[in-house]
């Protein structure tokens, strides 16, 4: 490896220097440019952006179509509703409607609309906009996609003057005070002919709420700006940005690095891993969801014709109750949820204290394999010679358990249930399928057992309705069934609670409906998972939780969490351009590195060239 003693040492530094200078000259203007382009954000020092990491995509920004959790939480921020749920305890509070009253027969409701409220393009918000929104949903089937259930019982919605809306219903409905339908501006939407095809992505979106949507990049982010004219007052943060992440680990890493401020839907492992992390505070909220296993009680459509492939033995409530006894909910909460959840009880989750109901000791079905076995013996499902139980007709108890293939919770629950039921002489075949297939098979009744779960609203009507005969699928398609319960007594209790306006009376009826549901055991409520979130405590001092006790930041029934976020002084002091400045440093660094590499390559090439000479 002899190198020419004279030429090389002189040539190499010269080449290196030359290239370095050239590259630096090229890199510096580029860096300057990138800082300049960021200057609007950097100059307006003191502006605070609240960045929220989400793992769900916005299914639609059209409030008539979007029903994913991500979309509906955005609609609450950019469109008004008649009323909303208070942050403290989910009580109904005025929003666009300042007050409301019903007629003596409870069939006619009058809402008074707030004065001096304007859409973000300056037009006033009137009763006409409200009437237009509801009428569009009643007349146009496409507009009823997301919130059609609210207008089902409406006969007419009129606006006698600019400040008054009158809604007439066919029967008394206790849900009238909590209609969570986003109200849209008539002057924008009357020109939309086909709601089903309208993406509503012209920015900024004309609306009225604490925030205004200003920029949207599908699968990347949605940015909202604070609405300074919001009637309740300007929000504490200047900007709100929802950032999409492919998986939750990536979102957590971004939180750790300070790239986002709030992350939601943490797994128990992640939540534990963030314990004691610097500048990160965790929020463990009681969830609004319940997680259940549906046992097919003999699915039928709304015409009463049997549909699906349910196992006949599951039509026997005694079999369903025996299966319930063979499931150890405490173990599931401990092992599947890592302790972050509440053991399942009646139906509605404990976050709604009024309606939460646990079976009394007499009706309870505690975990006991022996008593489950005894119950099946008595019900006439004897064990065969191989230990497997079979029904009176000789068909073995062999159930297909449909699971969400992408859910690790489902996979674990499936394993546990399979093992427990095998001790009863019942064979369970796990069928993990895509989310779409789970929904299709549930609606078609093509299952023996299936995992299900719903987020519950403060008003329980929506999820209570799922178990009625009316929720069964129609022969031509449509319908949103859950457990195909369709029980006369349950339906009667459901109808009575809907027409009951006295709160304590209604609570009593809802409890009786839950008792009936528990007794029939078509849906086994396993647990209520906690909502696990975390936020940067160096940038935010706190958020308004809903409810105040054990509440959540993001998955609220309202906009309180984002609206009343409290940024720290540190967040205000840090200028928004930091990200761009570091990008400039990176560019310069990369350029320097490239220069060094290029220079050394050039030097070596030169060396070998000289060597050849």
């Amino acid at each position, binding site marked *: 490896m002899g190198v020419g003693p004279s030429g090389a040492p002189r040539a190499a530094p010269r080449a290196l220097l030359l290239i370095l200078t050239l590259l630096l000259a090229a890199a510096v203007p580029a860096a300057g440019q990138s800082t300049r382009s960021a200057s609007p954000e950097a100059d307006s020092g003191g502006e605070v952006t609240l960045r929220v990491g989400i793992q769900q995509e916005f299914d639609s920004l059209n409030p008539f179509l979007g029903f994913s959790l991500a979309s509906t939480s955005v609609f609450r921020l950019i469109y008004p509703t008649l009323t909303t749920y208070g942050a403290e305890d989910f009580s109904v509070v005025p929003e666009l409607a300042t007050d409301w009253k019903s007629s003596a027969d409870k069939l006619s409701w009058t809402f008074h609309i707030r004065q001096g409220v304007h859409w973000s393009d300056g037009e006033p918000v009137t009763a006409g906009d409200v009437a237009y929104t509801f009428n569009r949903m009643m007349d146009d089937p496409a507009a009823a996609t997301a919130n059609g259930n609210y207008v089902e019982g409406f006969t007419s919605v009129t606006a006698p003057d600019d400040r008054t809306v009158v809604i007439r219903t066919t029967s008394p409905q206790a849900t009238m005070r909590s209609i969570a339908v986003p109200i849209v501006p008539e002057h924008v939407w009357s020109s939309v002919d086909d709601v089903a095809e309208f993406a509503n992505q012209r920015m900024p979106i004309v609306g009225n709420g604490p925030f205004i949507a200003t920029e949207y990049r599908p699968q990347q982010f949605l940015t909202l700006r604070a609405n300074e004219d919001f009637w309740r007052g300007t929000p504490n943060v200047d900007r709100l940005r929802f950032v999409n992440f492919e998986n939750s680990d990536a979102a957590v890493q971004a939180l750790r690095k300070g790239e986002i401020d709030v992350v939601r839907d943490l797994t128990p492992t992640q939540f*534990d891993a963030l314990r004691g992390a610097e500048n990160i505070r965790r929020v463990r909220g009681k969830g609004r969801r319940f997680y259940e296993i549906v046992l097919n009680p003999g699915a039928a459509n709304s015409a009463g014709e049997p549909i699906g492939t349910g196992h006949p033995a599951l039509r026997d409530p005694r079999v369903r109750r025996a299966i319930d006894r063979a499931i150890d909910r405490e173990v599931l909460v401990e092992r599947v949820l890592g302790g972050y959840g509440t053991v399942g009880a009646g139906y509605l989750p404990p976050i709604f204290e009024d309606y939460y109901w646990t079976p009394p000791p007499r009706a309870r079905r505690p975990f006991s394999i022996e008593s489950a076995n005894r119950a099946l013996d008595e019900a006439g499902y004897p064990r065969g010679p191989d230990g497997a139980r079979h029904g009176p007709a000789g068909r073995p108890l062999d159930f297909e358990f449909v699971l969400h293939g992408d859910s690790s919770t489902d996979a674990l629950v499936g394993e546990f249930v399979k093992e427990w039921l095998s001790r009863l002489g019942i064979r369970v075949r796990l069928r993990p399928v895509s989310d779409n297939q789970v929904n299709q098979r549930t609606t078609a009744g093509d299952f023996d057992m299936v995992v299900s779960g719903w987020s519950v609203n403060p008003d329980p009507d929506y999820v209570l309705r799922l178990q009625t005969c009316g929720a069964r699928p129609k022969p031509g398609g449509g319908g949103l069934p859950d457990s195909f319960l369709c029980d006369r007594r349950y339906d009667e209790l459901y109808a009575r609670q809907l027409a009951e306006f006295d709160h304590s009376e209604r609570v009593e009826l809802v409890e009786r409906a839950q008792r009936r549901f528990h007794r029939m055991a078509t849906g086994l409520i396993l647990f209520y998972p906690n909502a696990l979130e975390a936020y940067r405590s160096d940038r935010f001092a706190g958020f308004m939780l809903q409810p105040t006790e054990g509440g959540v930041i993001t998955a609220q029934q309202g906009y309180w969490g984002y609206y009343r976020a409290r940024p720290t002084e540190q967040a205000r002091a840090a200028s928004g351009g930091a990200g761009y400045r570091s990008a400039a440093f990176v560019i310069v660094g990369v350029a320097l590195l490239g220069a060094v590499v290029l220079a050394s390559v050039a030097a070596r090439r030169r060396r070998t060239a000289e060597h050849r000479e």
Partner: protein
Amino acid sequence: MSAPPNPTGAAGRRLAALAEGWRVYRADRGGLFGLAVLSLVVVLALLAPVLTPPAELDVTRAGGAPLRPPSAENWLGTDESGRSVLLLTWWGARMSLLVGLSAAVLSMLIGTVVGLVAAHFGGWVSTLLLRLTDFFLVLPALVLAIALSTVLSRGVLTIVLAIGVTSWPQTARLVRAQTLTVETRPYIERARALGGGHRHLLGKHVLPAVLPLVFATTTLTVASAIIAESTLSFLGLGDPAMISWGSMLKSAMDTGAVTAGAWWYLLPPGLGIAVVVLSFTLCGRVLETVLNPRLRGERR
């Protein structure tokens, strides 16, 4: 190396060829290493039910604390439900090998039949089969496999089918080329002149001549099939109840093992895939040299 005494007859010739093959194979250190590792992994995988208690894979009976780092009790730590990662990796090897091998065999069967038939019969049969092969060749295999495993019900068979059906075109092309060369040889012509039918020609003369090459390709296909299996399982298209290296990686991601810093949950399945795939590739490459003497010169 003791050569068999007086090699006479077909059996003797075959034995001698085998001995010569082994001599060439032995000379390659990489090939020997691959073979050794592979034998070890296969033996361990086969003996898993004998050497380890399968009950400990049952989540309802797992006793350990969730996501613990390696310790004297659990050498490779535990997963999110308290099972030993060592045990999971061990049993995962069974599924990864099983799926990899069956998918490779399936792809080999399809590829060989298509290649043989296309080359032997020629004409419109060949045109038809070759266009079909081309069609599958240009189709992105992973996308097709994902589509297949979404449509079909989840399970081992679906994964095997999805990989097998998408990975045969290379084999088919290779076999066709080899068949074309073999069929020009005089002994085939002689057999044909003596009245040998298609079945006799293909079964007695062409297939035996093509088989060694097919064997070498299959060894290489196993490697890519194992990777494909892991990919599909990682994307959540496998059966979550079945333990394979890909599904281990998926549950590690799903439960947030990265955030928790649980390297012991991610490394073993990842290294397992890397080592087994490397071994298969090493063996396959050497087998190619053994069976195709023309390659020998180039490799030295």
